[in-house]
């Protein structure tokens, strides 16, 4: 699939885990390992003409 032009969402800041961000959230000192990955995924979904391909996340289906 062609790589479309990136168009970041204006609602998603480039956020690192802030200090004091929650009782059990340590200060990772860098971007939060979960949130930075997921926010990047959300940005990619919002790219112009992007059809998010779900099929590669379908392994863990059923029991």
């Amino acid at each position, binding site marked *: 699939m062609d790589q479309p032009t990136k168009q970041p969402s204006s609602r998603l800041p480039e956020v690192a885990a*802030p200090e004091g961000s929650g009782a059990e*959230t340590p200060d990772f000192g860098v971007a939060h390992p979960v949130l930075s990955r997921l926010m990047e995924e959300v940005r990619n979904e919002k790219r112009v003409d992007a*059809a998010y391909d779900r099929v590669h996340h*379908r392994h863990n289906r*059923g029991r």
Partner: protein
Amino acid sequence: MDAGIQLDTVLLKTASRCNIDCSYCYVYRGPDTAWRKQPKRMRPEVLAAVCDRLVEQADRQRAGFAIVLHGGEPLLLGFDGLASMLRKLRSRFSLERHPIGIQTNGTLLTRELLDLFAETRTSVSVSIDGPREVNDIGRLDHRGASTHAATMRGIDLLDSHDEREFLFAGTLSVIQPAADPAIVYRFLKDLGSPSMDFLFQDGNHDRLPPGKARFESTEYGQWLSRVLDLYLADPSPVPIRVCDDTIKLCLGGESQKEGRGNKPYGILVIETDGEIRKNDTLRASFDGADRFGNPWNVTTTSLSTVLASPEFIAYAGMHSPESQVCRACELLAICGGGMPLYRWSTERGYDNPSVYCHDHKAMIRHAVSRLDAMGLRDALVVRPSPDHAP
């Protein structure tokens, strides 16, 4: 190219029996009895028809689709049947557009099978609920004995294979609300699982899920909220699908799997005799709930015929809840009403909120609160609740 709903996932029931006997199994412990009439294994002529129909469908739609070997226990098809099917599928489908995966209890994995899966680029997801004392709550064999050691042997084989990085897709665990989520999380991490997912136990408004005291109680929601906390606190986390979907939806993204969000999924199931059915989880509602009115079979009917049918469109539309309670709820875009099987009651059909409605709310509220506390308020699509502190 066909317009309309495309195929996301096709589940191939390569075997319609299982070598273990989980207490919560929606196939063999639920109200549906159709499996008794199904051939135990998919026969060669059905395997050939399945391959032909999938190739035909791939030519008709723009997006790829996932092919998941499922059961029962799919490995009961045996090495020869699996080799024949997987080699045929992989010779006609690229890894990039058509990932092939197996959902297995892991007890029948062998080195020879793993070599076959590596050759055919078939990934393996293993069902395990946690350490032995947790796994033994529900995952026993037909004599009532533990299956944990056999599953662990399979995972060890998987973990030690040269192609482990590709082969081991992750673990799938059914929530045992009485178990400590921290113990389950730590166990799965130590196991080396590259990704996790957690499922609700089956239940509906006629029959409450195990461990759930009443409709308004939140045992499962609290359990998942605790997992979310562990996940966010882990400096080296592996993806957890149910948490990822919840977080992404709270941030305006999309879900990866049915049961969250508001996008329809094109899911078809092919039984061992070639019959084409709806999402098999529906069979937890009532006997025959996953059957189409037409007796479609891959030997006679193309998948595109099924996908374009009014009956399929109505089935795909089930993801959107009928209930006015759901339609008025500000969290609908996140939970999507949950999976239809959890909405069922004999009295009102699927016109109910999920039996897990309050669990969904508890987890979503918790996630929103955590994301707000982490500085993401402006990105949230749901307002944080002032009375729900992380």
